[in-house]
């Protein structure tokens, strides 16, 4: 008989016997609600009130264009290509615009990286445009001001720093826009002591650092899941939240097409059940403290073919059979572990076929060490002007509260977040759908960010702000066009005049060109360090992870995303702590009980959720999360 499959612990229980019926048999009265008469009274009142309410007549209005643009037909949508601003992955979008308003985002099927995909965050990002809580104009010390005043204020601070050699720091999320990079450089050139720091709330800094050691360039390679036949992911949820989930999911689907010629084998090593883990052929449940050991073992086994652990030997065997067709990815934040992963991939000959370094990714460029030293500087009060753009360090960077220690803090932000509320000056930022800009998610593939509506409020893009502060104010469109004409047009070498090239790039949503090969050094790290080992403790391990629909919480304002049930836990809205069934039984905790999580000197009271680690057959003998593992989640504004 076919094995009964189950999707939740409740279902498993009901499969093994009638239990926990969906509907309770208890009569309503005993539930502490109103009695029958009270209920009828209330119903009568509500019904009457709703009838009365329905009688009022709202007067909707129609305001037609005074002069209709030719070809414009009210009610008929028009589609424009643009770029998703939801995260650094820069997926290509098609924006449906009806009667002058963007109403829906879809993936651009022609886009070479995202290929028609758009994740939940991207889909929902349109709501941010119409968010009534956006910052509608510049604010000086919390008070509404005009752009002239704001510019005068920041200019005077910058001039002072220029004269006295004061420290100017620009803190942003990863910048994937070529034009923005150029203007950041130009802006900072004028100062003696200026630095640009990039960081990512979901950091991949260790991967970049590891490549600096092994390949001599601090880059994030482009992972080609579409070309891999054996995929080993070590704590990297590449289908959910890791680096560029849409692009990776697309590639993964290509590699695992049941109707296609090949079906890639996938092993997932992880401490919690992730979206990628649910799809794996083999899933290895390891605590966060065991990941480093696993990678060390795997590196040895890939070299020699043997390991003391059978599971490692088996995975290494698969990898060795698929040299040049395999891919090992790792989400660890430890550089030494990532160096080992690079060595594994190098030994397997994956650099080139499945890991591209000469079309490197610009999706994550954050540098944790640079962030740390900036926080140190801030704590010491050594920063005169700090400009934060497109990031919320006070919420998502460790020690990020220190931004308030800058002598002058300017924040370029769309809404009043934790960082903006500490700022001396808030520069109201435009939404992506209101902005001209560009993005280059992977080297050699660039897209234009095309606005689909005029700015709703008195807002600016970062590009315009930077150009203004550099003393060369210009419209973002001119800045982008100029940059494309100078840099990208010669590289793309189209047989077209620039105007036509620009139009075509807007129509297609992207251009492709050869970025020029990168020097490849041998995979010899300059210094070989032992992977950092997380000390074993008697208590639980806390695993913080990004939720599929909220990432690191940047979009927590968005109710659509809060409403999306997590694909694994099926919970919407709240924060919760996942516990394996065995751990929960040991503690005597049920789903819904509150548990207090203490970690690193912080405490958080969270409802518990009993979450199994795996439902796959090969994990049947361990149908739970590791006993010592507790997943806590910091999803929104906890």
């Amino acid at each position, binding site marked *: 008989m076919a094995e009964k499959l189950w999707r939740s612990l409740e279902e498993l229980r009901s499969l093994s016997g009638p239990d926990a019926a969906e509907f309770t048999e208890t009569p309503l009265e005993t539930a502490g609600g109103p009695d029958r008469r009270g209920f009828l009274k209330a119903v009568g009142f509500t019904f009457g009130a709703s009838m009365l*309410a329905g009688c009022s007549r709202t*007067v909707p*209005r*129609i305001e037609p*264009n*005074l002069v*209709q643009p030719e070809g414009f*037909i009210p*009610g008929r949508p028009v589609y424009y290509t643009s770029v998703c601003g939801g995260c650094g992955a820069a997926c290509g979008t098609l924006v449906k615009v009806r009667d002058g308003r963007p109403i829906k985002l879809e993936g651009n099927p022609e886009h070479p990286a995202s290929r028609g995909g758009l994740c939940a965050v991207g889909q929902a990002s349109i709501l941010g445009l119409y968010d009534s809580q956006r910052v509608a104009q510049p604010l000086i010390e919390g008070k509404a001001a005009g752009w002239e005043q704001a510019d005068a204020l920041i200019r005077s601070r910058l001039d002072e720093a220029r004269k006295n050699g004061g420290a100017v720091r620009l803190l942003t999320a990863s910048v994937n826009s070529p034009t923005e990079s150029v203007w950041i450089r130009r802006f900072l050139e004028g100062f003696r002591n200026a630095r640009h720091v990039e960081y990512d709330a979901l950091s991949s800094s260790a991967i970049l650092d590891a490549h600096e050691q092994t390949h001599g360039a601090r880059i994030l390679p482009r992972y080609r899941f579409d070309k891999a036949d054996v995929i080993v992911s070590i704590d990297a949820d590449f289908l959910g939240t890791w680096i560029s989930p849409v692009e990776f999911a697309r590639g993964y689907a290509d590699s695992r097409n049941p109707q296609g010629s090949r079906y890639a084998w996938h092993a997932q090593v992880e401490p919690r059940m992730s979206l990628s883990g649910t799809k794996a052929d083999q899933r290895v449940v390891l605590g966060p403290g065991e990941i480093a050991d696993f990678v060390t073992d795997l590196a040895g086994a890939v070299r020699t073919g043997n390991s003391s652990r059978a599971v490692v030997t088996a995975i290494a065997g698969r990898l060795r059979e698929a040299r040049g067709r395999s891919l090992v990815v790792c989400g660890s934040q430890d550089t030494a572990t990532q160096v080992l992963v690079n060595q594994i991939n190098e030994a397997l000959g994956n650099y080139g076929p499945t890991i591209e370094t000469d079309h490197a990714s610009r999706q994550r460029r954050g540098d944790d060490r640079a962030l740390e030293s900036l926080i140190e500087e801030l704590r010491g009060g050594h920063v005169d002007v700090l400009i934060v753009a497109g990031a919320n360090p006070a919420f998502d960077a460790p020690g990020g509260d220190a931004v308030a220690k800058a002598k002058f803090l300017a924040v370029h932000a769309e809404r009043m977040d934790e960082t903006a509320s500490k700022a001396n000056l808030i520069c109201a930022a435009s939404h992506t759908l209101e902005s001209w800009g560009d993005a280059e998610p992977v080297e050699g593939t660039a897209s234009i960010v095309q606005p689909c509506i005029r700015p709703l409020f008195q807002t600016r893009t970062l590009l315009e702000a930077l150009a203004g502060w550099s003393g060369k104010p210009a419209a973002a469109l001119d800045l982008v066009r100029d940059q494309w004409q100078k840099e990208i047009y010669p590289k793309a070498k189209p047989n077209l005049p620039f105007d036509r090239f620009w139009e075509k790039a807007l129509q297609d949503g992207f251009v492709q060109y050869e970025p020029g090969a990168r020097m490849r050094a041998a995979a010899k790290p300059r210094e070989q360090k032992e992977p950092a080992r997380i000390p074993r403790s008697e208590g639980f391990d806390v695993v913080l992870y990004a939720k599929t629909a909220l990432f690191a919480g940047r979009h927590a304002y968005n109710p659509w995303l809060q409403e999306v049930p997590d694909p694994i836990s099926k919970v919407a809205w709240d924060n919760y702590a996942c516990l394996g069934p065995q751990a929960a039984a040991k503690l005597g905790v049920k789903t819904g009980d509150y548990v207090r999580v203490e970690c690193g000197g912080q405490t958080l009271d969270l409802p518990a959720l009993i979450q199994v680690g795996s439902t796959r057959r090969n994990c049947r003998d361990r149908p739970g999360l590791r006993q010592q593992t507790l997943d806590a989640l910091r999803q929104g504004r906890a």
Partner: protein
Amino acid sequence: MNTRIATIVLAIGLGVSFVLLAARIGKLHLPGNQQGYAPAQPIAYSHLLHAGDMQIPCLYCHYPAQSSRHAGVPPANLCMNCHREVTASLGAMHAEDELAAKENRKPRRVVSSELKKLYDALALDANLQPDPGKEARPIAWNRVHTLPSFVYFDHRAHITVGVACQQCHGPVETMVRVRQFSDLSMGWCVNCHRQATAQGVGGRQVNAPVTCSTCHF
């Protein structure tokens, strides 16, 4: 005794209110039904004059109805196709012409008070040239026919198959001020769809669907 009087008073009261109600019963609507709604518009535009007397076809102004879900209110520049020349009623313009001929001068431009609103919206000066000193401002018409947002209605299909505008909108060419003619209820839609499928439209066989997802999706 007292109770008897009270009962009589109550019975009479009840009767009177029934009589009063009965007189108005035809005017009572379910909530959401706006049949007969005829709001005043910012410009007293007369369909009787334009569609009736002048016999301008409906689709001249409401051209999106052929190619979009909305019939729409025409943009002001469409009005200007005629109203660049016609600035007041025919009578007023003729009177001015005659007066000018009598006084032996060139006729002055007479502008009716309603058309003045149109020119003001477009920020035009007395010579109907753009006036940079004025601010153009869209005309906020009051919407007469409104469907709830959970209903998808598309003019295109109806126009293409040849349903006359009047079938749903009534004799608009006789209305000085547009009034909602039908109740636009679901029953009304479905009845017409059934009838159209059974009898065809304009002698043509049609398939007007009555599945839920035709309008609600």
